[in-house]
């Protein structure tokens, strides 16, 4: 079945059914709600694409006195600002999702981990939370949400580093397992979800799992908010259905001269023009050629852009934002950056790029967290597709 590129209005739709949704959910069994979420096919919109229903189920099954629900609003990926938009225009949807989750897993305490640059959102968020607390009181739901201001480091968006930073420690990712649903904030079972993920649960709870599942393709259901930037006449954020081809996307958003699209920001993949048609936007799954959207950044480059500079910028970012604890990421990122510089300057032969590709692959399979593991995505896709630009 072919689908046309469609802009949707689900997430940002101005609707206020929190009370009805909460009442309805309270009446249903926890299993029913979880099964709904699982069958909707909703996957995390924050990075790893973990099935949300399953995550809640694992946390519900964990045994503990205290459990936590955390909304990850650290949004540190350069060029993404969709979570900010969601939190400023439909925060009640996010809070509704958090309360339902809390109810299901048996938690009384939630946090929004807010990116430090988004401090300006705090006052209005607090007043929405205040209202929300009053409603929960009426409904006899024992759940309180606090805002925790982020530290300003990109790595603190990684869930376990986020817990560490909330606990007052240095923001370094932990070993996994144990996973957050067993050992999260304060060592207690924790559900951590991205802002957008939580907002989607609102739609699923309101319209039902089938409506959500109707959107998208097999491994990637529903819609996704994309932050479109780069060489485009229409930068901004857009809610689009999963499953579109990159060609359709470029036709719609490009400037007619697009030579590549970076799907998923610095930690995503670079797709060159010749692969636009084959590439379908969705989670990395069974479909060949699909790409992981992570934060939903879509950066379009036209033929005037130097892909060397693009890669250089990404590597600058990683060299600085790696937490520095593990060898492959801390040293590897520096070597990749110095390496492409050396090749460009002619201090190393072009074959040195092959050595760097081997390094990038080793970083992917040995790094401790998603940051180091994903550097190879942009590095290899840019170097392999634009090799001449790296050398000359």
């Amino acid at each position: 079945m072919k689908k046309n590129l469609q802009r949707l209005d689900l997430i940002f739709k101005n609707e206020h059914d929190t009370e009805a949704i909460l009442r309805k959910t309270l009446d249903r069994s926890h299993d029913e709600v979880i099964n709904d979420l699982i069958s909707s096919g909703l996957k995390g919109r924050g990075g790893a694409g973990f099935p949300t229903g399953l995550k809640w189920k694992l946390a519900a099954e964990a045994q503990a006195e205290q459990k936590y629900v955390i909304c990850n609003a650290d949004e540190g990926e350069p060029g993404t600002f969709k979570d900010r938009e969601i939190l400023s225009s439909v925060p009640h949807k996010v809070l509704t999702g958090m309360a339902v989750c809390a109810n299901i897993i048996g938690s009384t305490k939630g946090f929004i981990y807010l990116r430090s640059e988004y401090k300006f959102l705090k006052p209005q968020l607090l007043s929405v939370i205040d209202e929300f607390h009053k409603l929960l009181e009426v409904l006899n739901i024992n759940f309180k949400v606090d805002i925790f201001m982020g530290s300003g480091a990109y790595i603190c968006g990684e869930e376990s580093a986020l817990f560490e930073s909330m606990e007052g420690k240095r923001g370094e990712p932990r070993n996994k397992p144990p996973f957050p649903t067993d050992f999260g904030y304060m060592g207690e079972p924790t559900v951590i979800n991205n802002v957008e993920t939580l907002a989607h649960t609102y739609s699923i709870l309101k319209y039902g799992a089938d409506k959500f599942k109707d959107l998208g393709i097999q491994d990637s259901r529903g819609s996704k908010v994309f932050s479109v930037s780069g060489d485009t006449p229409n930068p901004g954020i857009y809610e689009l259905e999963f499953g579109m081809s990159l060609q359709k996307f470029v036709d719609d958003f490009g400037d007619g001269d697009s030579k590549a699209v970076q799907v998923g920001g610095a930690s995503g993949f670079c797709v060159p023009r010749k692969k636009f048609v084959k590439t379908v936007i969705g989670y990395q799954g069974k479909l060949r050629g699909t790409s992981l959207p992570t934060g939903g950044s879509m950066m379009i480059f036209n033929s005037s852009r130097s892909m060397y500079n693009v890669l250089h910028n990404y590597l600058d970012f990683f060299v600085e934002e790696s937490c520095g604890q593990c060898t492959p990421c801390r040293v590897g990122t520096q070597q990749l950056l110095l390496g492409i510089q050396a090749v460009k300057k002619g201090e190393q032969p072009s074959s040195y790029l092959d050595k760097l590709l081997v390094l990038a692959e080793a970083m992917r399979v040995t790094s401790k967290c998603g940051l180091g593991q994903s550097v190879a995505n942009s590095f290899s896709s840019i170097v392999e597709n634009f090799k001449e630009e790296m050398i000359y």
Partner: protein
Amino acid sequence: MSDKVNLKIDNIAVSIKNGSTILEAAEKINVRIPTLCYHEDLCVAGNCRICVVEQTGSDRLLPACAMPVSEGMEIHTNSMKVRNARKQIVELLVSEHRADCTRCYKNGKCELQELSSEYIVGENGFIDLVAHKGYTIDNFSPSIIKDDSKCIRCQRCVRTCDQLQSISALTVAHKGESMKVSSFFDKPMFEVVCTNCGQCVNRCPTGALTEKTYLDEVWTALNSETKHTVVQTAPAVRIALGEALGMPVGEIVTGKMVSALRRLGFSSVLDTDFTADLTIIEEGNELLHRLKKVVKDKDTTVRLPLTTSCSPGWVKFIEHAFPEYLPNVSTAKSPQQMFGALAKTFYANKLKVDPENMVSISIMPCTAKKYEADRPEMRSSGFKDVDYVLTTRELALMIKQAGIDFASLPDDEYDSIMGESSGAAVIFGATGGVMEAALRTAYEVVTGREVPFEGLNITPVRGMDYIREATIKIENVLPEWDFLEGVELKTCVAHGLSNAKKVMEAVRDGKANYHFIEIMACPGGCLGGGGQPIPTSPAIRKKRSEAIYHEDELKPIRKSHENPEVIHLYEEFLKEPLGEVSHKLLHTHYTERNRY
């Protein structure tokens, strides 16, 4: 769920307790997986990634040190993917490292060097990051040198300082390419709360943290025509020196060590154990004196509990962390410093050597002793009481440099008048030993009878439990101690500064009312000191401890107050415990220090 998990490692079946790691499972079947950031004494960090292994069906590699086993796992520790990845990691570490092994103190004893010799990096490595960024070396501390250009950021030191010592003098600063092991505001080590315990040095896999060596100074003194060199050896050196010279762990090498020191050319080979016995007399009397003031005279200006003072790491710790308890610390100097003060007075006088021409050298299991010898208070002889402090490791190096075949040396005896010691002094080297030695003496002073423990072995204060409490009821006392009749003497022993901190917090919060507390800064006491042979582990420390208690049993004299040379010293020179001469030479005072 069954508490055993079955898996295969390199096609060998292994069954192991649920919750174990892949590394532990591999160890069980003698499959060696290389590690760097992992250390048995510390919590798992999983940051060096050298221990990665492949799991069938999994794309990414798993860190063996951090990954728990699961049922049916198939692990490969030597697949192509694993080997390639490890080689990349070694190459990366080397690229970040100032790898000038031939000039390095850790040459031949370095874990990175060993790894790189297995995964030959060759000439086509990555770009040299040290040359790119530059580096600094902090060598201002009298005890420890920190060379960031040799650091592989495994954070063993950070975990040591935090978990074992609860000091956090070393922490991780910055991120990304700037990430490094740093101190408070990146100040030099000697300006911060570092206690010089050297536990980080013992666990650093590379040459990034080492002791400051004084080998050249000592060789110069030995080769000087005019200098009289006096060497003292701490209790815990004799049970560990052999390790650094290729002998089995836990071998007692006292006699060979004395031979070696003579061969090296020391003029007088004497024993810190002698002043350990002396410490017991002075500190034991101080305890009894304080008990009398508190129990009998109801003197509220005198403080209990009394704490020991022979561990300079502990002393510096309390000066930083609990300065309000400095009046509780025994004023008795450590055996090293008592020795130094007597060497350049009593001993020099006996030998008719001008103390100005005497060089006093001590062999210690400890890096903090280097700092202690440098303290301005430690000049009561009118000179620097102890000129140079060498660690067990440095002595081993001297013996090697001198071409001495240590294992074949005959046993020799210490020189006299400051060379005799009791079993009580020997056990100073183990946690609980000072307490046991003090009790052997104090109990007898008060009751006229030996401590009521079989073979004088006060087992409740022995062992490796972090904090141990023991109560001894004092009964049928001699008339002059009647006020102690029926008193239950409450004692506590702790080793490792994190445990010391717990004890002091309990004291501060009124949750413990001890009379006497023994604290050793290092895990296991001096036998696990920061100057001892590397590596260290619970098993190694256990063996060293067994050796110490064995040596105690072998000694004809087991109680400090029966050491004839100590008795003689009082008769001839000191006159009485806590007397005027003691006060001048053998006691000291402490200084409140900053908290960072």
